[in-house]
């Protein structure tokens, strides 16, 4: 009888812990969905930017092609980690990409380019917000699975620590608003 009650209580605790971790897991996925929507919006705008550059100048721009390649990696990524890695790769290329594009006056002063650039600037801010939101959910999730008693059963139930979407200080500096403003 007592053993039955003990097993029942343990099972109940397990269910509660599982539900709690699962709820946080779903929230992380949802937060990533929101972040991904903004990241893809930026990718679409980069497409437009590349098209504009191609129309504005006949010259071949190797870096532009590189960015187009990075874009396809994002589209083909299947897991969250792959997508995050692909986006971070793209992000690291962007400052150089903008500088290369703006080395061509016919591109830099193209009306379409300026409009898209402005739109990207706004999307960058939205990405920062969504990234902070995603990281906050990852933090809550990671805390939940690494604290006692969840830490014991989390690996058994398939809950693994998730990576935050961090940008290295150099990249952060490169997308600094002031720098964009001074360009």
């Amino acid at each position: 009888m007592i053993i039955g009650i003990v097993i029942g209580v343990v099972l109940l605790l397990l269910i509660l812990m599982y539900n709690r971790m699962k709820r946080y897991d779903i929230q992380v996925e949802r937060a990533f969905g929101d972040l991904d929507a903004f990241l893809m919006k930026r990718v679409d705008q980069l497409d437009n930017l590349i098209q504009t550059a191609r129309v504005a100048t006949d010259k071949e721009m190797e870096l532009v092609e590189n960015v187009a390649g990075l874009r396809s990696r994002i589209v083909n990524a299947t897991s969250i980690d792959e997508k995050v890695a692909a986006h971070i790769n793209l992000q690291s290329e962007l400052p150089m990409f903008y500088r290369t594009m703006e080395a061509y006056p016919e591109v830099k002063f193209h009306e379409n380019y300026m409009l898209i650039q402005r739109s990207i600037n706004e999307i960058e801010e939205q990405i920062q917000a969504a990234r902070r939101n995603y990281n906050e959910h990852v933090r809550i999730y990671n805390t939940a699975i690494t604290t006692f008693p969840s830490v014991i059963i989390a690996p058994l139930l398939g809950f693994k620590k998730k990576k935050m979407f961090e940008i290295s200080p150099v990249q952060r500096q490169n997308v600094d608003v002031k720098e964009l403003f001074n360009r």
Partner: protein
Amino acid sequence: MSQEAKVDILTKEAFNQFYKNELTPVIQELERDRKRIVGKLWLVIFSGIAVLVLSGMLNRLNFEYYIYVAFGGVFVVWKFFQIVLEEEDELKLKVKTTAINPLIKRVNESFKYIPNQTIHKKIVNEAGFFKPKLASVSGDDYVEGKVYTEGIHDTSTEMTFCEIEGKYSFSSHQRTVMPYFRGLFYVVDFNKHFDGHVYVFPKKKEIEYTLLENVVEPDKETFKKVELESVSFTKLFDVYGTDPILTRYILTPRLMERIEQFSAYAMTHEAYMTEMFPNMSIAKRRSLRRKKKGYGVMPFFSFKNGMLYILIPTQTKHFEFKLMKRLDERVFENYYYDIILALRIVEELNLNLRIWTKQ
């Protein structure tokens, strides 16, 4: 107006210089007028007392018409008293037009000052600070205009502000209105476009003495509390938003820092204090505020559909002329402080940096 000139305007030196060169002759004349009216007021008071004493004496001497003397005397004194009150109102308006208006223009030439106007109740309610909504809004000293920043791209931020007193009724059927709060209210064009609503409210312990702690709870179905990364910011403020990403879009780490700085400044409503202790921490200001009545309160922020509303419920009258109080530098320094707060909103929150799609 250059950036350097604007920085100067925010200092005590700028005020002192303006007061000495421009305001002193005006204030001296206003002070003469004030003293003249105070003299008349005392005369009316002594006349009233004299009438009462005379009536009493006539009564004791069994003068049968003493009651007529009493009523007649009181009537004449009352008429004189009304004249004095009218002169006081005229002087109030004169103070506003000849001293406060130039002070406002000195701070920002584009500011337009309307002494007897207030921000419409609909706009104050639009900010959504209070439950229930305000039944009436009164106030005066309305200022509207643009704050310019010269730079690579000349930008400006539109704003209006005034002193308001909000009142509410217990129900839609009741006509009795109760005072809610009194303070400064700012409406500022925010530098980013957004659709949604975010509140930044001081923590309850910060607002308990403003009597507002029970009326600023956002609707739990629409608003969710958002925990932000900044530890110092979350110690001071509670943040509620209709969407967590929008909340973070508006409240960038930089803006959170700036809101903290601005709030530290706004908490001190004694101009000289800010000048003497510009780097004083919020904790220190809070302890000073407890010791001495008159220190300011933390501002409330409401970001709604591209606009920023700021309420500073000081529970005191601003730009208030008091007949029995000497008009001097100190009085106008406090007025000056209230006006430059508007510039600080734009400059300290960096609202003139608008490289986004919002023009």
